[in-house]
């Protein structure tokens, strides 16, 4: 099986612009949540696009394009592409797609009639718009499509890209996730489900947790056939060693209480990576701050990592960024790789009242050095789970 290298990372998050900004600010204890939401306040589309490009892209597509630009620059690929266009692709997950465009145009329809609906409505709101826009901008003509698995979509997209490279469908794929759903409808709909925090605090694994905080943004990784990346002299940042994906097939929103299918995805990913539980140095939890997820995920981690589970630091990026829905798995993959590369475990912020049932090492308080056995590269597991019972798990290794 071909080895898949990561040669570039990009992220637009509530903590700022840039994948390194995300990890550095999270490690410093910064939180991107304001008034109960986590917007990408530092993102200005005109830093990245012409006026024409910006108005041809819903905000979720803009995030994806900007993250892709950063990732390709790091991969040394912002001028001439190192592969034939037909051998390159883009797979981008999203929870919802261009919901701001949908809401604007529905308002236009309601208030002004059908002739008020914009010709750009469909091309901007469709869930594959992000992948298509990135492909168009960078002339990627191989496998290009969107992935829908709610809050697991970013990780599922990366997993699909890994398989595309391993199967020989492409030499390089830009993969990740994007979301921009801080809109009245999405806000009301998640609140109606009691999924979001009523008090406006993200505190994964804390006894007082009461729901997630909605965030927005995008993460994109440049994935390449490791041999091809080496041959072109690219700097390899790390590897996607394993991927596992399962479905609870249980309930539209609630996870299986025992976390069994999530645990199965973790076990599949470790088996795919041919890595044993005692070789895992870090777990980046899905850790949403909802009562149900955090309990089931704790059980899943224990089931998959067995007696090792208590020895491994587990932290939640969502404690700093809120929940980026379909982008979460992608920015968290970047954060996981940076944890391994920088050897700094960022903390689960806001965790002050331990929940008796949730007894793993959730790294409360502040960042700490990542312990990796001498001579080893560092291995991390990134969990992503979504409404619909989707579970997607990545095993990453630093180069």
């Amino acid at each position, binding site marked *: 099986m071909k080895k898949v290298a990561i040669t570039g990372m990009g992220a637009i998050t509530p903590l700022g612009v840039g994948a390194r900004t995300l990890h550095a600010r999270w490690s410093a204890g910064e939180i991107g949540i304001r008034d109960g939401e986590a917007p990408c306040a530092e993102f200005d*589309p005109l830093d990245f696009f*012409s*006026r*024409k*490009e*910006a*108005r*041809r*892209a*819903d*905000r979720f597509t*803009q995030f994806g394009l900007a993250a892709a630009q950063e990732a390709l620059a790091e991969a040394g690929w912002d001028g001439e592409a190192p592969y034939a266009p037909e051998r390159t692709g883009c797979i981008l997950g999203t929870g919802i797609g*261009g919901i*701001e*465009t949908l809401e*604007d*145009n529905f*308002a*236009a329809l309601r*208030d*002004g*009639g059908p*002739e*008020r*609906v*914009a*010709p*750009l*409505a469909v*091309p*901007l709101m469709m869930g594959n718009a992000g992948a298509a826009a990135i492909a168009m901008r960078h002339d990627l003509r191989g496998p290009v499509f969107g992935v829908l698995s709610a809050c697991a979509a970013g990780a599922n997209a990366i997993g699909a890209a890994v398989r595309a490279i391993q199967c020989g469908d492409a030499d390089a794929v830009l993969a990740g996730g994007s979301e921009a759903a801080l809109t009245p409808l999405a806000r009301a709909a998640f609140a109606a489900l009691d999924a979001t925090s009523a008090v406006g605090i993200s505190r994964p694994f804390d006894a007082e947790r009461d729901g997630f905080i909605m965030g927005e943004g995008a993460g994109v990784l440049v994935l390449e056939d490791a041999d091809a990346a080496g041959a072109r002299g690219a700097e390899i940042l790390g590897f996607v060693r394993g991927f596992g994906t399962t479905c609870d097939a249980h309930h539209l929103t609630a996870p299986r209480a025992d976390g069994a299918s999530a645990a199965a995805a973790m076990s599949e990913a470790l088996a795919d990576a041919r890595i044993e539980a005692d070789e895992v140095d870090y777990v980046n939890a899905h850790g949403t701050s909802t009562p149900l997820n955090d309990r089931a995920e704790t059980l899943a981690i224990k089931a998959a990592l067995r007696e090792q589970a208590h020895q491994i630091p587990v932290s939640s990026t969502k404690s700093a960024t809120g929940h980026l829905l379909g982008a979460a798995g992608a920015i968290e993959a970047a954060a996981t790789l940076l944890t391994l590369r920088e050897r700094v475990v960022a903390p689960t912020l806001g965790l002050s009242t331990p929940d008796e049932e949730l007894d793993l090492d959730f790294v409360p308080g502040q960042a700490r050095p990542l312990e990796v056995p001498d001579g080893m590269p560092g291995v991390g597991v990134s969990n992503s789970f979504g409404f619909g019972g989707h579970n997607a798990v990545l095993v990453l290794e630093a180069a």
Partner: protein
Amino acid sequence: MSNYAATNSPNERSTTMPTTTDTATIEKVIFESLETFGAEPTMISREASFEELDVDSLDVAELAQIVQDKFGAEIKSGDVPQIKTVGDAVDLVAERAS
């Protein structure tokens, strides 16, 4: 950034509808629309081609909506091949304006 002309309030129609549809008014509306679409303002003229202004079929669809709304002039996708320049568009709208 994803708001565009089509989400104007419907009441705007009555206030912006010119009483007589002269070519200068049509030209002004089309020039402004092209600028909104992202065309370089200094390049917009009657002689400029849609190609050099980077105006594509999606822009034309938006433009059609605007001129239908303001002047009652219907432009169909079948008209697109004969619209090469901004002037062609202005003339076609003037011809069909109600």
